[in-house]
């Protein structure tokens, strides 16, 4: 079956209830900490209280004397790791301190309560050095990374931006800022480490069991076959569980040292703000030039952001600007400040999310300057081909999303005058934004299909379900690929004991694993026919898709928001949001809607609430809990209308689907910000838009 033929089936496209629903609603689905292990010990970490320097002295004597404390592990007594090339993960190997909150060791004890208290009474002193954690656009040590995350070029240049901008009839030159944000999945990062001889089992909270194995095994000098990672249920990740973090190493090191008993480690919510990645703050200068007809003649997107000194992560913040709109001259750049901070990492739609906030707010501003409706302005600048690759789009229906969204939302007849509409104490406004997210696919996935007799088929792939609905969607895809009912499928995921799956990230899961399932099913029927015997089995890898050479593949969306600002207090409420998406074929309408509302809710929080506040004198995030780091509550979210347009794309994968996990957040924060401007007349460019920025 070629990847250019779209398969239509009976299960794909149906709103099947989640397969893991009954376990989740009864709380019986086992997350990492909840798997039964024999006679475990509990780990509580030791953290650095300084941002830079060396550990001078550790006095663990009081802690070790507590009944129930089995071990205090530090760099002084930790086993040597075989591979220390990854400085984020090579912990407890030296006395160096690279950021505040870094793991310096751990207490392992009979109970969580004992370990937690013992950790408080370990005394650590430092040779402290001055630290530098301040991100500023005018630093003289900003550097150009070799590439940005995803393997993309750091800078791009088309045409002559400076010339085109200086001669543009309408110009915009503004700087937008997004704060540091923390992913904060509801389930904290968790590792339960069990050594049996030289074999290591990790019960992990991860977006990719196989990538964890691939990373952890060489660190301990093990062949990957000696490491098993188990993660059937994961309580959210949003990117922070996409790459392994130091908690996996810390638990495995402690368990190695203790010998003979499993070690359980779940981070506290406070610890989630220092050791599991975060989204870098960004400072983004956007310059747009347009002619009298509102056509963009010049686009420039210059990004300043941070990375850790110990390991580089360069968020691809300007990436969407390379494809989004048509223009003759375009520049995008990324510059990094290397600071004494924890290592940044993926957070839902890395790159596109903060970048499109800035771009779409800027688009709103220049549309106003051109006296054009912001929906019309975007339609006017719709490109013919993808400027980034020079290829045609496999499908691009952003205009249809904008028009359909405008219709559903009631955009027609909108008076663009800001601060013009009032209902009681509320100033009312509306805003729009668009978004794109690439159709990703990752290499290496394999699927094993086996006939189990009685018409049943086991379909095995080590994919994760972090709330995306993998359990259900892959069951549906398997059913159609094998041309059987969903009840005939036994899906096995979330374990390195089943074949390799790429990480759940980059909205690549369905494309990657679904394509592989189709290939394996094709091979299975070819080898074993329609009436296989019990035990008949086939394993196949993801087929290549040559169409990726011919087409640029992206999902698109349009977002419409109504915002109300209290004229006295600056409080912002968003009673309704509408999202219309062009994302190809929908595997499961029920779980797809959830992905969209989830992403848009996160975008709402990004616009109005979220900010990790760093106190530069100390070097750490000071609002490090859920009381002070605000994510939306139920009362913050009003009506969310989701729709998708019919889109046939025969090039992307056999399902005709595009990844949808991240696009929801990409356009929503700008739509909210634009609506707040329209309501209040106050343009706040640095997120979050909190009452203090609006009260007058």
């Amino acid at each position, binding site marked *: 079956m070629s990847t250019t033929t779209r398969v239509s089936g009976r299960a794909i496209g149906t709103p099947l209830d989640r397969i893991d629903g009954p376990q989740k609603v009864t709380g019986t689905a086992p997350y990492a900490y909840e798997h039964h292990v024999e006679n475990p010990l509990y780990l509580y970490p030791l953290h650095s*209280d300084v941002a830079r320097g060396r550990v001078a002295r550790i006095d663990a004597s009081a802690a070790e004397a507590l009944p129930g404390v089995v071990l205090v592990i530090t760099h002084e007594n930790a086993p040597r790791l075989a591979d220390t090339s990854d400085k984020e993960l090579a912990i407890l190997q030296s006395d160096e301190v690279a950021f505040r909150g870094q793991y310096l060791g751990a207490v392992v004890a009979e109970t969580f*309560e004992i370990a*937690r*208290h013992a950790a*408080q009474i370990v005394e650590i002193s430092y040779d402290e050095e001055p630290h530098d954690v301040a991100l500023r656009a005018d630093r003289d040590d900003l550097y150009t990374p070799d590439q940005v995350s995803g393997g993309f070029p750091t800078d791009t240049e088309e045409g002559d931006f400076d010339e085109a901008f200086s001669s543009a009839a309408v110009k915009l030159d503004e700087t937008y800022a997004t704060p540091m944000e923390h992913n904060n999945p509801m389930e904290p990062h968790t590792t339960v480490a069990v050594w049996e001889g030289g074999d290591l089992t990790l019960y992990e909270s991860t977006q990719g069991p196989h990538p964890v194995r691939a990373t952890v095994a060489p660190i301990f000098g093990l062949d990957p076959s000696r490491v098993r990672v188990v993660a059937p249920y994961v309580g959210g990740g949003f990117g922070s569980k996409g790459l392994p973090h130091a908690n996996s190493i810390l638990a495995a090191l402690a368990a190695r040292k203790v010998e003979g008993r499993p070690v359980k480690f779940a981070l506290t919510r406070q610890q989630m703000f220092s050791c599991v990645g975060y989204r870098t703050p960004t400072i983004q200068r956007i310059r747009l030039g347009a002619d009298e007809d509102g056509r963009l003649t010049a686009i420039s997107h210059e990004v300043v952001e941070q990375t850790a000194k110990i390991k580089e992560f360069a968020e691809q913040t300007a990436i969407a600007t390379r494809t989004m709109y048509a223009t003759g001259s375009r520049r995008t750049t990324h510059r990094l400040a290397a600071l004494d901070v924890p290592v940044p990492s993926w957070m839902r739609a890395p790159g596109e999310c903060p970048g499109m906030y800035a771009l779409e707010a800027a688009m709103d501003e220049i549309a106003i300057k051109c006296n054009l409706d912001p929906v019309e302005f975007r339609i006017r600048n719709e490109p013919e081909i993808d400027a980034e690759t020079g290829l045609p789009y496999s499908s691009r229906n952003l205009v249809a999303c904008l028009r359909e969204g405008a219709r559903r939302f009631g955009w027609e007849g909108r008076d663009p005058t800001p601060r013009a509409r009032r209902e009681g*104490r509320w100033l009312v406004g509306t805003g729009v934004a668009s978004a794109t997210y690439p159709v990703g696919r990752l290499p290496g996935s394999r699927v094993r299909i086996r006939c189990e007799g009685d018409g049943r088929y086991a379909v095995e792939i080590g994919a994760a379900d972090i709330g995306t609905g993998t359990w259900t969607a892959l069951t549906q895809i398997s059913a159609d690929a094998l041309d059987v009912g969903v009840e005939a499928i036994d899906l096995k995921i979330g374990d390195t004991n089943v074949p390799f799956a790429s990480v759940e990230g980059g909205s690549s899961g369905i494309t990657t694993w679904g394509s592989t399932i189709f290939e394996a099913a094709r091979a299975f029927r070819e080898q074993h026919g329609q009436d296989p015997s019990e035990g008949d089995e086939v394993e196949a890898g993801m087929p290549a898709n040559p169409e990726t050479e011919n087409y640029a593949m992206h999902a698109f969306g349009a977002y419409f928001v109504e915002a109300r600002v209290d004229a*006295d*207090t*600056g*409080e912002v*409420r968003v009673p309704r949001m509408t999202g219309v998406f062009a994302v190809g074929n929908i595997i499961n309408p029920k779980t797809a809607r959830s992905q969209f509302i989830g992403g848009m809710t996160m975008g709402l929080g990004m616009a*109005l*609430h979220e900010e990790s*506040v760093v*106190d530069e*004198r*100390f070097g*750490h995030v*000071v*609002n*490090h*809990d859920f*009381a*002070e780091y*605000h994510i*939306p*509550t*139920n*009362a*913050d979210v009003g009506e969310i209308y989701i729709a998708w347009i019919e889109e046939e794309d025969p090039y992307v994968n056999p399902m005709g689907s595009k990844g949808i996990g991240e696009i929801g957040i990409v356009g929503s924060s700008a739509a909210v910000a634009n609506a707040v401007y329209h309501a209040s007349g106050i343009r706040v460019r640095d997120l979050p838009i*909190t*009452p*203090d920025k609006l*009260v*007058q």
Partner: protein
Amino acid sequence: MKPYHYEQARDIPGAVAALAEQPNAKYLAGGTNLVDLMKLEIMTPDVLVDVRRLTSDRIEETEDGGVRIGAAVTNSDLAADRTIRSRYPVLSQALLSGASGQLRNLATTGGNLLQRTRCVYFYDTTTPCNKREPGSGCPAIEGHNKDHAILGASEHCVATHPSDMAVAMTALEAFVNVHGPDGERRIPIEDLHRLPGDEPERDTTLEHGELITAVDLPPLDLAYNSKYRKVRERASYAFALVSVAAALDVEDGVVRDVRLALGGVAHKPWRATKAEEALRGEPAGEENFRAAAEIELEDARPLRENAFKVPLARNVITRTLLELSEER
């Protein structure tokens, strides 16, 4: 959390005696603040004396026409009480704007009054804090102080008191009944909480071992026309940036009487006596309400991040009084 010994006393005198004997003992009621702080070792009692079933969990009308609220009444029960809802709506509204349903079901009247500040530096044992460790410094003064005080602060501490209930009770001129080693006393609520001065480690004027047993609300007709307005950064489940508890009696367009208290602005609920004085006997109207608010806020000393609280408080006072004058 440090190991501690758990005790249940037989009666209130027994509980008081237990604390008097043990300088590092504390009372435990709902636990929603104390257990939170003990987990972080911000509070480290050696002994907890459980008083949740000792003090009264009833709300009763008193002889003078007021209401006595037992210290063990949960925040939920107090907010839902029909007498409170009709006679002192500001108190019910204040409680309902605080915390979450789950927390209100466990938290008690006594505990709510005694809850500690939410300042991020108080909550972080790796940073200095004069309240936790006198003399160590106050990082909030030059640091993250968006949520901190604009009134009544000192060079040692700029924290605010987080309770909503206490702000309403301050406007209602409640009395806090206390049973201690030296006997019983009755403290006007304005004298319960302190300004930081040079002893920020002392939140209240209670002596060690004094147990709150009940709160008395005096009869107050104008409380029928009262309300609580809380401004926060998200729609629910967050502490106040600024809050206002107000009660208003207007007759023939003139303010006959008014009560006004502010939350989120100081180390204690802030009774806005200057504003009240400026309003009594004056025509009710937006201009006068705003002018009175400005008089009260004249002494505001904003920090680098919280200057917005001045116009915010002014606006909320004005709006709340306006609504009360229109709604009666």
